[in-house]
């Protein structure tokens, strides 16, 4: 197990081992076969670290596509009047942007990339509980993604109507909605299997001596996330299938002309899709809980409160779905009840924010790139969270519903929360994953461009929404010109920052200095093995000898 430093990773944890060995043997004399063997050593590997990196490559490929779509939408909206695209093209673009960003990027997001890579390492385990199922999940993700892409170009053309696929429009439109729905179903299946795998791993494979409250908080966030994936995803799965059957067989359930009720679709959709919002954000919160103590050199403040609030967010997420439907004609009583429960979600979220701030208090804060991103999370996510309160209250929601305010709020939460959390994770665990370090100066400069561009892009949306600009429209009145131009220019700056960041990371991967096993001097278990870790992670079974945030000398339990 010691030769991990030579090859990037070992290649002997593969499925179809016979075939793989045959190709490898043929590779002795042929560079083509050598290349094939290299690819196979990745896509057949059940090693959780390789699966995580496979997800990374696939997801960020789709991310770049969806970002390009976003840029194109902003170009169209640069000024009032038609600039570049027909209204129909614009409809397809925002649907695709939404579908790719939610189903292919931010939902699988941190758990699939960093959860896969880090969960067994942080628990001191050799792999996840079901490594082959883990690889199968990746294939299901890829199959779903391919179907989503094919749906753009095959019969009927790119799906329109938004990523929520509301009935009855989704059962009437002639575009290729059915295939997109089956794609989303397949992606859901992948998500369910990952969730099952993580739950079992956390229950079964904690290192000797590690109790539930000795786990890093990132693991806690994955645990809560996995529960949501297992509990909620099947509901949207059956809902999407019902919509497909509605389109093909006319079963009538969501079709008002056959006695069905389209509002039932909204209920069933949001019963899943609201909890899944927490699938997008909880892992990012876990990342922040792990990064802040390292760079403040302090024990995390309120460990148990953060762990419990993680579970509380996951739990309460099931009871708030109808706040997406305040204008759908549901009863006043339902609206009041759901509005009230929605405000309750703010409590565990605020508990986290205050605990993070208390962790920073009197810490010896070191602003390295991961910390910079983590602090950015606190800032942007707080804006996202607080702007959400106005949407949770029925009265203000009636005014703000379906305006750009919602778009701004959503992007502050999802991108300013989930996305920024992912960038924090990327900078924090980059040396563990690649064994090398990136350039700090360039990392900070790229952050600066991102931060400025991000706020220029999304903050005007909040104002535009309050002024009454509706979302999903291809055009708008001239009075909204100025702020829209600001947002579009912001989008250029932000994308420049993202490209800059990835260029810097790529340079670090290719020619960065060797990072060593623990460059941040962090205390969680993944830093106890070499970077990158060998196959099966640890030379010998690690034991729990200090807590995950033990920066002040004693094991604070």
């Amino acid at each position: 197990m010691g030769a991990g430093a030579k090859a990037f990773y070992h290649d002997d944890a593969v499925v179809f081992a016979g075939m793989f060995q045959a190709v490898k043997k043929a590779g002795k004399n042929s560079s083509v076969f050598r290349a094939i063997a290299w690819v196979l050593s990745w896509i057949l590997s059940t090693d959780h670290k390789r699966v995580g990196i496979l997800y990374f490559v696939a997801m960020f490929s789709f991310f770049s596509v969806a970002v390009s779509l976003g840029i194109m939408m902003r170009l169209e909206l640069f000024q009032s009047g038609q600039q570049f695209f027909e209204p129909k093209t614009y409809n397809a673009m925002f649907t695709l942007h939404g579908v790719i960003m939610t189903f292919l990027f931010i939902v699988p997001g941190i758990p699939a990339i960093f959860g896969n890579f880090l969960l067994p390492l942080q628990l001191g385990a050799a792999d996840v509980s079901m490594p082959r199922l883990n690889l199968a999940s990746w294939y299901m993700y890829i199959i779903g993604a391919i179907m989503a892409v094919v749906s753009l170009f095959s019969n009927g053309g790119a799906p329109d109507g938004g990523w929520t696929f509301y009935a009855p429009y989704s059962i009437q439109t002639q575009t290729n909605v059915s295939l997109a729905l089956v794609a989303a179903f397949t992606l859901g299946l992948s998500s369910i299997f990952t969730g099952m795998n993580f739950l079992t791993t956390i229950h079964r494979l904690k290192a000797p001596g590690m109790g539930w409250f000795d786990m890093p908080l990132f693991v806690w966030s994955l645990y809560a996330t996995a529960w949501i994936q297992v509990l909620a995803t099947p509901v949207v799965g059956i809902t999407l299938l019902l919509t497909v059957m509605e389109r093909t067989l006319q079963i009538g359930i969501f079709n008002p002309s056959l006695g069905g009720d389209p509002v039932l679709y909204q209920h069933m959709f949001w019963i899943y899709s609201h909890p899944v919002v927490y699938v997008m954000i909880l892992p990012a919160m876990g990342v922040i809980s792990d990064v802040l103590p390292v760079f403040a050199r302090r024990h995390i403040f309120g460990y148990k409160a953060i762990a419990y609030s993680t579970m509380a967010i996951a739990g309460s997420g099931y009871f708030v779905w109808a706040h997406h439907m305040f204008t759908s004609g549901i009863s006043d009583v339902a609206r009041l009840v759901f509005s009230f429960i929605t405000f309750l979600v703010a409590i565990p979220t605020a508990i986290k924010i205050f605990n993070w701030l208390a962790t920073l208090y009197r810490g010896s804060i070191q602003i390295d790139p991961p910390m910079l991103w983590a602090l950015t999370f606190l800032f942007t996510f707080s804006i996202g969270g607080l702007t959400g309160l106005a949407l949770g209250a029925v009265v203000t929601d009636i005014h703000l519903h379906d305006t750009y305010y919602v778009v701004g709020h959503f992007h502050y939460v999802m991108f300013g929360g989930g996305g920024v959390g992912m960038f924090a994770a990327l900078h924090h665990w980059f040396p563990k994953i690649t064994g090398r370090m990136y350039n700090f100066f360039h990392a900070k400069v790229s952050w600066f461009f991102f931060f400025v561009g991000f706020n220029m892009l999304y903050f005007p949306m909040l104002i535009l929404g309050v002024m009454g600009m509706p979302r999903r429209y291809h055009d708008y009145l001239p009075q909204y010109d100025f702020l829209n131009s600001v947002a579009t220019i912001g989008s250029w700056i932000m994308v420049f920052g993202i490209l800059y960041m990835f260029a810097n990371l790529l340079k670090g991967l290719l020619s960065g200095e060797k990072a060593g096993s623990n460059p941040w001097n962090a205390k969680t278990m993944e830093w106890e093995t070499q970077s990158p870790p060998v196959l099966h992670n640890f030379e010998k079974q690690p034991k729990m000898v200090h807590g995950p945030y033990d920066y002040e000398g004693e094991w604070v339990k």
Partner: protein
Amino acid sequence: MSSHAASHPQDAHSDNPHADYIGDKVGFWFFLYTELVLFGGLFLGYFFYHMKYKEAFHEAGSHLNVFMGAGNTVVLLTSSLTMVMSLTALQKRKKGLSLLYLGMTILFALAFMVVKYFEWGAKFSYGLYPGSEILQSSHSDGVIIFYGLYFVMTGTHGVHVVLGLLALSWMFVWVWQGKIHADDYAYLENVGLYWHLVDLIWIYLFPLLYLVA
């Protein structure tokens, strides 16, 4: 590096150094849970429309063949019994008996699908299927929804029966080949659990569709 939590005696007998019998079952129960939630979505739809179209559901449900439905219930319940007996026989190291019971379970599953074929066939011959001219022109909204739900629910269940059938056949081969044996039977046990779930869901579908009306 085997599992860290308390392991099961069975793990020592497995060829797999990472064997974790309890973990296998924990994981599978999570999967069964997702199946329940999946059908839960359908049951939710059923209750919603049952409230809305009480009379129409009553009328439409009375056209279902209770005799065939009840027969199928007996078939599935019995198959669950033979499934358990197959596992117990294997644990008692009676491989032949285990295969016999497993074979019976497979036959019962086939019988269920044959009855289903005749039931569905009869409905189709009367034009009572989603999207049919007759159903949409001469029946009320409630009846259309009832048959929509009937076909979706029994159809989704039927797909699960077919998948179970495949899994059972696979297990038959593995028991035959000795890959599953008295000291390593997690696969058979999990497929058995799956089969009981398929059975359980039918036990709810039958009264809801055939009898509540």
